[in-house]
């Protein structure tokens, strides 16, 4: 057997062993626990802040979308949804606006540094009987590129991320 053939055989054996060694890792599925909780998103409470109606609705709709994307909950219910009443282990997400700075897309385009849209909210995740599970103050801003309503998307994304990263208590089942 020539040296070249020996080398090729060794490389082939090495490759087969490497594949076999790696296969359990490739084949293994990351064990993601099935979500225990469902969540119902309450309508956004503007608090004492004079928040534009479009922002209120955009925060609410973006929250529903972002929470669904996290796949952290069995179901994401809308405010007033009768189906939530019959479901077990439902958390309520309440969002109260703490501060809002209206921005200007034109100011941002002209000056780069001025005209940011800023939103700050208190997000509270509670059980049906009012027990606090999670409470966080979250920001959502648009500083450079994007329309003013983009702040609501950023805010909802941050709220959903905060909930996803948090350790939720065990459900009843």
């Amino acid at each position: 057997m020539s040296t070249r053939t020996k080398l090729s055989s060794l490389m082939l054996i090495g490759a087969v062993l490497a594949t076999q060694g790696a296969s359990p890792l490739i084949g293994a599925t990351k064990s993601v626990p099935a979500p225990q909780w469902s969540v119902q998103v309450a309508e956004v409470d503007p608090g004492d802040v004079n928040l534009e109606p479009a922002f209120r609705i955009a925060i609410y709709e973006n929250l529903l979308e972002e929470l669904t994307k996290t796949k952290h909950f069995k179901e994401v219910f809308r405010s007033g949804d009768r189906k939530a009443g019959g479901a077990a282990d439902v958390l309520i997400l309440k969002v109260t606006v703490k501060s809002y700075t209206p921005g200007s897309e034109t100011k941002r385009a002209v000056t780069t540094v001025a005209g940011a849209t800023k939103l700050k909210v208190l997000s509270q995740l509670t059980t049906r009987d009012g027990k606090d599970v999670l409470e966080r103050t979250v920001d959502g801003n648009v500083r450079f590129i994007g329309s003013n309503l983009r702040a609501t998307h950023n805010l909802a994304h941050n709220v959903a991320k905060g909930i996803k990263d948090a350790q939720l208590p065990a459900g009843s089942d």
Partner: protein
Amino acid sequence: MILKIRTFTPLRLIVTSLMTLGALSLSAEEKTAAPGDKLHVTHILGFEGVSKNANGDLFIDGDALRFQKSDNSGGQVAIRSIQDILVSTQDKQVGGTALMLGRAATPYGGGRVIALFTHKKYDVVSLKYQDADGGVHGALFQLPKGQAETLKSRLEARGLHATR
């Protein structure tokens, strides 16, 4: 006779084409409402079955408020399920990504000057409605300035409550 041929540098060519694209999209956005009862709107978010930033016509069709795209797809809600109509105004930069890139590529800060003139005011109509299960939905539509009042009055004529 000497013919002077003006040479286009690659940068100038890029800026010119981006500005042309921006101007074209600007003229596309300037489209006013379709004749009749249909209002040409942009769906921002929330209307079930319609993608974000879709352009189409919003009109009352029998007992429903219908949004229809040019390919006849879209969505509708029963007027009786609408709980509130809210109208606000928004100032936006026009021309989309093309004009934004054009502004960024314009030398000597010229893009900032362009930005001063490429903004426009729009009406934003926020609709709050309920689905069959009682779930609250919100939908936002962007209309040319002044047309939100038309939609509001048409819906108010159907007995709906509107908040300013």
